[in-house]
């Protein structure tokens, strides 16, 4: 009887393991995202909730606001027509790619750089913004440039490529990855690290609100932001690229750049005009 008990336990563990493995290897849905969006008259965008100037939740009304939000709205109108709706789902650097691959969102517009590693799993539109990576430090910090971070602690965010980039310039840097930029900034203030790294435009937004902190040195990488979409969606990709071109051509793009980055100290908006 006892032997039987253990045997059945074993069989069940095996079954469970099989089920679990099975869950892991299901293929993605192969649907036409553009057609679905047209049918629903809605594109759902994965956007940031914690990034000043790009995508941030406004405490007053709980709505997302920022350059990427406005861009997403403009692109939606170009693709779906005047009455097209943009639905926003807040994502983090960690959650955005799983959510896209799972189909919770149609497109990622969340300060995501086009990188070869990401291109292995998802597709990108043409770049819609050119950022560059930089570091944020406390005034008077001995860290003058990214190379100074060897043997110091650098704070980044889970799922962003900034941490990997720093490793190229300062291989001996210790890395802490936090959940989002809000936590990362507070951690920097609490002295958990010597510098915070991400794209200069995000850092510029932080420096504005936090006197005593500055963006240090020149950007040491170029980070072209692209809209992330699932692979095998040529129509959707084409529609996005066409919409980006149209938004640039009719002046909407430059108007939005001026609206969000016109008055950010330490960030020359003219460099990103198109």
């Amino acid at each position, binding site marked *: 009887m006892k032997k039987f008990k253990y045997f059945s336990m074993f069989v069940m563990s095996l079954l469970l393991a099989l089920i679990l*493995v099975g869950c892991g290897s299901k293929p993605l849905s192969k649907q036409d995202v553009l057609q679905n969006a047209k049918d629903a008259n809605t594109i759902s965008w994965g956007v940031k909730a914690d990034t000043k100037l790009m995508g941030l939740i406004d405490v007053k009304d709980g709505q997302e606001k920022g350059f990427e939000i406005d861009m997403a709205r403009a692109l939606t109108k170009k693709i779906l027509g005047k009455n097209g709706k943009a639905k926003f789902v807040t994502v983090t650097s960690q959650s955005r*790619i799983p959510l896209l691959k799972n189909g919770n969102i149609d497109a990622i517009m969340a300060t995501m750089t086009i990188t070869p590693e990401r291109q292995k799993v998802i597709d990108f539109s043409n770049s819609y913004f050119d950022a560059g990576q930089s570091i944020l430090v406390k005034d008077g910090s001995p860290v003058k440039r990214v190379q100074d971070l060897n043997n110091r602690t650098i704070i980044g965010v889970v799922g962003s490529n900034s941490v990997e980039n720093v490793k190229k310039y300062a291989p001996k840097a210790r890395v802490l990855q936090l959940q989002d930029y809000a936590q990362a900034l507070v951690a920097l203030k609490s002295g958990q690290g010597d510098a915070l790294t991400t794209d200069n435009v995000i850092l510029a937004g932080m420096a504005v609100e936090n006197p005593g902190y500055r963006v240090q040195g020149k950007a040491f990488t170029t980070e072209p932001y692209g809209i992330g979409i699932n692979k095998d969606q040529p129509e959707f990709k084409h529609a996005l690229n066409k919409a980006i071109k149209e938004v640039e051509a009719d002046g909407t793009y430059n108007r939005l750049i001026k609206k969000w980055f016109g008055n950010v100290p330490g960030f020359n908006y003219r460099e990103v005009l198109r």
Partner: protein
Amino acid sequence: MISAFTNNWQNFLTGFGWTLLSSIVALFFSLIIGSLFAILEVVPNKALRVIGNIYVEIFRNIPLLVITMFFYLVIPLYFVKINGFTAGTIGLTIYTSAFIAETVRSGINSVDVGQMEASRAQGMKYTQAMRYIVLPQAFKLVIPPLGNQFVNLVKNSSVLAFVAGFDLMYQGNAIASQTFDTVNTYLVVGVFYLIITLPISYYMQHLERKLA
């Protein structure tokens, strides 16, 4: 799932180590602190009882995440720098100690009152009676619930991921966001947690049955 493990096994094992270390350290200290407050809650002195009660009620009713983030983000602003692992372990210790205090207290209460009276009648002091007669019996009674607290502790240690505490969950997040193989990575993480929690949990069920 197998390849998700073999490609990153060092990271998983590192995370497993930190998770285990954090859980054991937190268990050790929360046992001491928890027992202390449990005794405070049952002593005849009213002021001490109130102190014990306040501690237990406060930390039982605030989320672990809030306590941990407080130690990670707020304390360094004004006092000393605490790294993520330590902040997480301190948070775990405080949070768990409140539960252990409750468990031990109910253990003490369920030891027959007559035992205490009898030992006092024989000329033992209150502290002696507590130390030699009541507490040993109480601890025996509460071993299964304490074991379950330890299981909770191990599960709760995943809060370290929020403060870059290098634990299993943190490594899982880092691996998943690099390999983009989310589900399989978290399955491996899950198996590692079960390696610790399932055996303890089964052993405690076994003990419970024996004691009942």
